[in-house]
C-alpha cells in the first residue's frame, strides 16, 4: 500500500491565505449555529441593557443640560459598544478552546502562512460584531431610538444627541 501525498500549491500564496482564512472564518461562523450558548449572551446582553436601562433610567433625560430627550438614544451607543466588545471576547474564548483541544497545533502544521489563521478568526469576529450591532440597533429603533441632529451618524454609529 502506498501513501499518496497531495502536493501543496505554492505558486499562489495569496490565494492560499484567502482560502485558508475563508475556511477558518466559515468554521467560526458555523460555531454560532452549533454552539449558540457561546454566542447568545453577547447578543442578548446588549439588547437587554438597551431595553432595561432606557426604561429604568428614563428620567435622567430630565436632568438639566442632559444632551438628549430620549433615554434609549443615550444607552443604545453604550450597548452597541459593549456588544461589540463581548463579540470580540468570543474570539478569545474560541481560540482558547482550539488551543486546549489541540486543534490550534494541527492548524500550525497546515501549509499556510500563520497570519492566515489569525485573519480567519478576525473575519469571524467581525461578522459576529456586525450581527450583534444590527440586532441591537434595530431593537433600539424599535424601542424609540431616533437619529439626532447634525451629528448623525457619530460616535459608535448610532444616535447623536439631540440638541
Amino acid at each position, binding site marked *: 500500500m502506498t501513501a499518496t501525498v497531495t502536493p501543496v500549491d505554492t505558486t499562489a500564496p495569496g490565494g492560499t491565505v484567502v482560502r485558508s482564512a475563508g475556511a477558518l472564518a466559515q468554521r467560526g461562523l458555523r460555531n454560532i449555529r452549533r454552539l449558540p450558548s457561546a454566542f447568545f449572551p453577547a447578543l*442578548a446582553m446588549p439588547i*437587554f441593557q438597551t431595553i*432595561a*436601562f432606557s*426604561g*429604568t*433610567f*428614563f*428620567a*435622567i433625560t*430630565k*436632568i438639566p443640560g442632559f444632551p438628549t430627550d430620549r433615554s434609549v438614544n443615550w444607552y443604545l451607543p453604550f450597548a452597541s459598544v459593549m456588544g461589540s466588545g463581548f463579540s470580540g471576547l468570543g474570539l478569545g474564548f474560541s481560540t482558547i478552546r482550539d488551543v486546549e483541544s489541540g486543534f490550534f497545533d494541527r492548524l500550525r502544521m497546515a501549509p499556510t502562512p500563520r497570519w492566515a489563521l489569525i485573519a480567519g478568526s478576525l473575519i469571524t469576529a467581525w461578522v459576529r460584531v456586525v450581527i450583534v450591532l444590527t440586532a441591537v440597533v434595530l431593537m433600539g429603533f424599535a424601542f424609540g431610538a431616533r437619529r439626532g441632529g447634525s451629528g448623525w451618524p457619530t460616535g459608535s454609529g448610532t444616535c447623536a444627541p439631540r440638541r
Partner: protein
Amino acid sequence: MSATAAMSRRSVMAFARQPALVVPALIFPLFFAALGSSSFGRAVRLPNFPKVHSFLDFALAGSIIQGVLFGSVTGGAALATDIEHGFFDRLLATPVSRISILVGRLAGAAAFGAFQALFFIVVLLPFGVRIKGGVAGAIIIVLAGGLTAMAVGGFTAAMALKTGSAEAVQGSFPLLFVALFFSSTFFPRQTMQGAYRRIADINPVSHLVEGVRGLVTEGLTAGHVAAALLIPAAIGVASIGLSLLALRARLASR
C-alpha cells in the same frame, strides 16, 4: 438541632474558604453603587425623586438586595455541587434529619446575607451614607438582609434539588438581572413610565428594596420595619415550601 448547627457552620465555612465565590457578591454591588453615585448624583433633584440626602443613601438598599441575590445563587450552586459530588448522598446515609440538610444550608445563606448587609453599611458609611433609622434601623436592615438571603436561597435550593446541577442554578443569574433592572433597585419607581412602571410595580424585588430603603432615607417607622422584615419573610415561606417539596421529590426518587 446539633446537626442543623453543624450544617449551618459548614455552609458559612464554605463561604469563608472560597473567597473567589463570594467576592463578586460583595464587590459588584459596591461598584454599581459607586457608578450610580457618580453618574446619577444630580438625579436626586429630579421631580418625583424621593427626598434623599445623596444618591448613595438611595443606592444602599439596592446594593444590599443586589448582593444578597447574587450570594443566594452562590449558596444554591454550592448545594447543587454537593449533589454532583455525592456529598449529599453521603449525608443521606447518615442518621441526620433530612430537613436539617436544607435548613442548615438556608441558615448559612441567611448568615452570609446578614454579613453582606453589614458589610455594605460599614463600607458605605465613610462615603457619606446616612441611615435615618439610626442604629436600630441598621440592625433591622441587617436582619432584612439575612431574611432576604434565606427567601431567595429557598428558590435556588429548590432549583438545586430539582436539577442537581450547579450550572443550572448559575443559569438563573440572568433572571436575577432581569428582576433587578425591571424594579426600583437602581432608580425610583416614581420616575418610571408606561410598561416599565407597571412591571416595577408588580415586581417583588421593588418592594423588597423599598422596605429597606425607607429605613435609610425616611427613618424608623412601623411601616418600613414591617416592609423590610415581613415581605422577605412571606417570600421565604413560599420559597422554603418549594424547596421542601423539591427535597421530598429528590428523596422519593432514590
